């Protein structure tokens, strides 16, 4: 009987590994999809979308972060409060704004040669929210006197988890598939969080400290403009940009808004009640 039990255990373990090994890797079709699309050619009639994002109500007090588990962090960090909701004079920072529809997905766009930099400084990610184009270089820098783990958890792009000691050269990565948004964390310092939006077009922005954002060179058309905040949720509006028009689209978030943004799917592996 023990032999049977042992055999069953071995078979179950082997089956488990076969299942995991047989699980399909996330397909990286992003590069191929881009190549099949016609390249966008500017007609010189592009417009601009600008706006300000306000916060209505009393912003929550940022919770204190306990950095005592790493003495280097405790001494390097100038700000030890959670920075997911940053409100200055009634204006909300770190809202990711992007357009969809209106034909933007029909074209491929030049990938900027300049990398987008994600810095680890004071044991925080800077910036906390960022946008990047598919196949654009993400440059990860460690400016701290301690080791960090850069660990994005995408659903459509390959996941990676890389250690970056003090003084290590920058890590450069690219995302080939559009994905909104990819949570990033440091496994060594669990309070460190960031969000990366990967788009296949350049029409996006992140609101600044004064709540302002600007999306340049938007082709004329009617779009859905999406405002995404990691804690306060997602809001949308319809916007029509005429040729060479500078269109303003403001947005207001209210205190106590939903905590689960629609575009950030935290789906369990199995769905059970």
């Amino acid at each position: 009987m023990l032999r049977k039990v042992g055999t069953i255990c071995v078979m179950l373990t082997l089956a488990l590994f076969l299942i995991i090994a047989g699980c399909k890797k996330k397909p990286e079709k992003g590069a191929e999809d881009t190549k099949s699309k016609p390249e966008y050619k500017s007609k010189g009639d592009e417009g601009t979308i600008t706006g300000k994002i306000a916060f209505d109500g009393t912003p929550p007090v940022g919770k204190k972060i306990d950095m005592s588990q790493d003495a280097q962090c405790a001494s390097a960090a100038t700000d030890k409060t959670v920075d997911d909701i940053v409100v200055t004079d009634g204006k909300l920072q770190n809202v990711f704004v992007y357009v969809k529809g209106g034909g933007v997905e029909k074209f491929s766009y030049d990938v900027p040669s300049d990398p987008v930099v994600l810095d680890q400084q004071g044991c925080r990610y800077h910036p906390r929210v960022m946008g990047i184009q598919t196949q654009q270089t993400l440059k990860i820098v460690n400016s701290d006197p301690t080791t960090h783990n850069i660990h994005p958890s995408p659903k459509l792009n390959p996941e990676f988890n890389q250690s970056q000691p003090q003084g290590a050269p920058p890590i450069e990565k690219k995302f080939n598939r559009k994905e909104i948004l990819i949570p990033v964390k440091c496994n060594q310092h669990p309070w460190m969080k960031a969000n990366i939006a990967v788009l296949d077009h350049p029409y996006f922005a992140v609101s600044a400290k004064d709540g302002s954002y600007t999306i340049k060179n938007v082709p004329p058309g009617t779009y859905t403009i999406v405002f995404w905040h990691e804690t306060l949720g997602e809001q949308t509006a319809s916007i029509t940009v005429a040729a060479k028009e500078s269109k303003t689209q403001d947005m207001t978030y209210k205190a106590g808004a939903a905590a689960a943004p629609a575009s950030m799917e935290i789906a369990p592996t199995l769905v059970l009640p």
Partner: protein
Amino acid sequence: MNDRPASTSRQRSLKDQVGNRETVKSNLGIHRFAITVACLTVVLLAAGALVTSNEAGDSVPDWPLSFGRWLVSKDHFVANVRYEYSHRFLAGIVGVTTLLLAVWAWFAERRAWVRKLALLAFAGVVAQAIIGGVRVHFPEYKALIAVPHALVAQSFFGAVVAIAVFTSRGWLAQREVRLDAGNPSLRTLSAITVAAVLVQLVLGAGFRHQAFGIAPHIVGAVAVASLIIWTSVVVFRRHKGDAYLTRPARLAAILVVLQLGLGIAAYFARLASAGDPQPLEPMISLTVAHLMVGALTLATMIVLTLRSHKALAALNVTGNRAPASPVRRAII
């Protein structure tokens, strides 16, 4: 002529006594070592729970080395790496001690099935290490891998506890076998309860690693608590005077009450900490304690189940002892 048989029988009797004494001595040595391995495994389970509770599972990005070394440098042993590396270090200790247990049992244990169980335990700890390594190299499948990792951990712990039982003085002693009257029999009920506890541990791991929600684990808690209380009641009603059974039954009943309280406290602590920037107390300690008591509950129920199979026998329709069950035939 009469002497030879007598002499032979006396010699055989003496040899058996000496052989039995030696067997008992070596079994007690293995028994104590198995207890040591079980205790180390409890510490290892706690270390693993701390890794998950502190979100430290990916803090060491390579395996089997840690930052390219077997022993990490002091500079690396900070923040969440402390939890992950300590877990790996303890796992190595448990692996080595389990190997020693298997080798010792192989050479000193007369019962083949005990030797094989010790080998199975060693295979389990090796498999567990590999699963842990797969978890590190494939972080995108962490939910799928973490649940088997938890299941194998508890199963390995159960195997070591079983070895400790099988090599104990109480197991090796001659006992009067009593009839396991009643429906369901205690042996069946306790075995079902062990299986239920294992399923509940898997459901807890699934919730913890976000494979599925809390509802299955709550339903399981009610079922497991009911089964353990029922089993304890059966023990005290039918075998009140037998400390061999009542002690683990009493301990199981105490543990399940403690476990329910810890589970409720851990869940509400988790809800209250939803907006925290990082895992904090008391959520961490309550969750780890809940996991540890769960493991101890499993161990206690395994002890009760094995002891019930040792001490009790089936009742056939004529009221006489029925042929031994497959478990009993295999292990008695």
